[in-house]
């Protein structure tokens, strides 16, 4: 591909992101602006922003690569990533918005009235956030290398720099505008080239798509177990992702939170029609790319060619960069929020490291750790790495949210025990998958798709320990339930506002 076109695309996207971010800077002034855009974001804008933030490198590049390599079974990734929002909609969306908390640790503290649960939740937000950020930086490296020939570390560094500048300058208000813009940009960037590709395919007499795994690729072992474990991880993991939850606080009330989520389902479904087609066309026109993440980037050049191919390739590269920037921004805001509230503000109380300053400092730390990990060269396909982050989220925050919202008898010791068991089991599986090269077999399969055993273990632990410590049920649980479930138009006592109004 023509490097000049690639560089231009990357430059334009980074610049546009920064400019829109700067536009937000003029509006955001106070700390609460930084966190949740003062909760004045409309549902359409918010749904686009959620879509923009959610569609990461894994969605834009990873899925098509996996589909090209392994075939239709991999379509469960996008299906699961969309269905996760349906589960979130029916069990979590409105009560979570009504809880009035900013972050997952805020929710944990408000519901369980325990500082201890809050601390563990903060730790898990960082773990999941970093696990999710790492493949984004990897993907950025791959993209920049593919479209410009730059060394593979450069892409991650560029993305990290733009994100830190943007978050530090504008906080979440600007992020909301940026994210909404990013969704439509991504849809255009993956959709327009696809029209041309499909035209070429039809012009060639519409050759059939080969089914089954590509030659030279091992068929994944225990496919049925892997599929169901993946379904569990993605259906239940979405609600536990830190950057997804923060977005819900920008809805004005619980009802709007539901309607926004419904709009998100539509927007995601629309987007996910496309990577599957790239994967299918890749099986015909670029079978040599099996096992890599670059099929979306390379297909326009290969199928169209010439100047048109270069332009379409540049458009796709721009979309990919938008994917990295938007997801990284959202994750960075979430992780930085937790770091600044729970780590920096606390350990340095007495110094002036509070509010906005500590948030900015935390943003740098939030990006630095996963960037190091990506540069150190963890080598897992992008979509798989993101899948592991979902497994950790499903094994920890999913039980905390579901039991916290629907079960009065959850106790702080039960919640902590469940978070620890789910977190340790799933994190162990992730570490083994990333760091150790196991022979293909049941052990390898169980570790590569841990959700099927780690999620039930976490739920069971929370239930059993809560029943064993029944005297520790939070004293105000009834008032909290009123807050979580009563529609806003009903005038009742909802207890004290969960959020610290001034930081």
């Amino acid at each position: 591909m023509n490097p000049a076109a690639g560089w231009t695309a990357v430059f334009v996207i980074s610049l546009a992101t920064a400019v829109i971010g700067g536009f937000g800077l003029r509006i955001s002034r106070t700390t609460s602006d930084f966190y949740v855009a003062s909760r004045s974001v409309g549902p359409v804008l918010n749904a686009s922003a959620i879509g923009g933030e959610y569609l990461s490198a894994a969605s834009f590049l990873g899925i098509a690569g996996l589909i090209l390599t392994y075939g239709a079974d991999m379509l469960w990734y996008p299906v699961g990533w969309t269905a996760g929002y349906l589960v979130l909609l029916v069990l979590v969306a409105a009560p979570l918005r009504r809880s009035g908390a900013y972050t997952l640790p805020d929710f944990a503290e408000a519901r369980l009235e325990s500082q201890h649960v809050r601390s563990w939740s903060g730790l898990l937000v960082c773990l999941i956030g970093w696990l999710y950020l790492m493949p984004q930086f990897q993907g950025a490296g791959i993209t920049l290398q593919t479209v410009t020939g730059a060394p593979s570390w450069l892409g991650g560094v560029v993305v990290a720099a733009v994100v830190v500048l943007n978050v530090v300058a504008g906080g979440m208000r600007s992020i909301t505008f940026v994210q909404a813009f990013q969704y439509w940009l991504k849809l255009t960037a993956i959709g327009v080239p696809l029209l041309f590709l499909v035209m070429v395919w039809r012009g060639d007499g519409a050759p059939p798509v080969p089914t089954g795994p590509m030659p030279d690729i091992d068929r994944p072992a225990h496919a049925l177990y892997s599929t169901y474990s993946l379904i569990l991880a993605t259906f239940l993991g979405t609600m536990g992702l830190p950057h997804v939850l923060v977005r819900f606080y920008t809805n004005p009330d619980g009802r709007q939170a539901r309607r926004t989520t419904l709009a998100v389902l539509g927007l995601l479904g629309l987007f996910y029609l496309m990577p599957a087609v790239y994967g299918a066309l890749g099986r015909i026109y670029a079978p040599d790319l099996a096992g890599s993440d670059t099929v979306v980037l390379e297909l326009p050049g290969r199928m169209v060619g010439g100047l048109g191919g270069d332009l379409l390739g540049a458009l796709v590269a721009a979309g990919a960069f938008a994917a990295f920037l938007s997801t990284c921004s959202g994750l960075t805001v979430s992780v930085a929020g937790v770091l600044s509230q729970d780590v920096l503000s606390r350990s340095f109380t007495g110094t002036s490291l509070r509010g906005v300053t500590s948030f900015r400092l935390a943003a740098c730390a939030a990006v630095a750790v996963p960037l190091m990990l990506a540069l150190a060269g963890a080598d897992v396909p992008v979509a798989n790495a993101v899948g592991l982050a979902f497994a950790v989220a499903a094994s920890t925050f999913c039980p905390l949210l579901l039991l916290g919202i629907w079960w009065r008898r959850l106790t702080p010791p039960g919640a902590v025990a469940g978070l620890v068991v789910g977190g340790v089991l799933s994190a162990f599986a992730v570490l083994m998958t990333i760091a150790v090269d196991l022979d293909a077999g049941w052990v390898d399969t169980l570790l590569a798709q841990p959700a099927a055993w780690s999620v039930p273990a976490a739920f069971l632990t929370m239930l059993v320990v809560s029943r064993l410590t029944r005297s520790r049920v939070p004293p105000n649980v009834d008032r909290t339930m009123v807050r979580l479930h009563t529609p806003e138009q009903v005038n009742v006592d909802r207890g004290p506002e969960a959020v610290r109004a001034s930081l």
Partner: protein
Amino acid sequence: MAAAPRRVTVVSPRTTAARTRRVAVTEEIDEQTGVGDAFMRSLIRSQLRLGLLVLAALGVVVGLLPLLFVVAPGVRNSEVVGVPLAWVVLGFLVYPVLVALGWFYVRHAERTERDFAEMVERE
């Protein structure tokens, strides 16, 4: 001679009793009385039941697909306009189903809340 029955004053028996006031359920909820609690529990239960109903539908319609494709490979590979069925279902048909389930849920959850609000605010 029978004494004439004493004349008595006939009054409403309850004039001295405290006047009962009809209490809105919102106050019962605020005071955390048994009545208020019962209303809250019934709201939470009906919302949970609705959510689980939608999830059950999701489990049957979408969740059984992997099993179906293994049990009946013929279904998986049967072609619709030249594309294997598994691709058509997982790549396209699933998404409208998800949106429809979500739409159904939002409609009913909002109706439950409207009914609840009307009920508890009535004096």
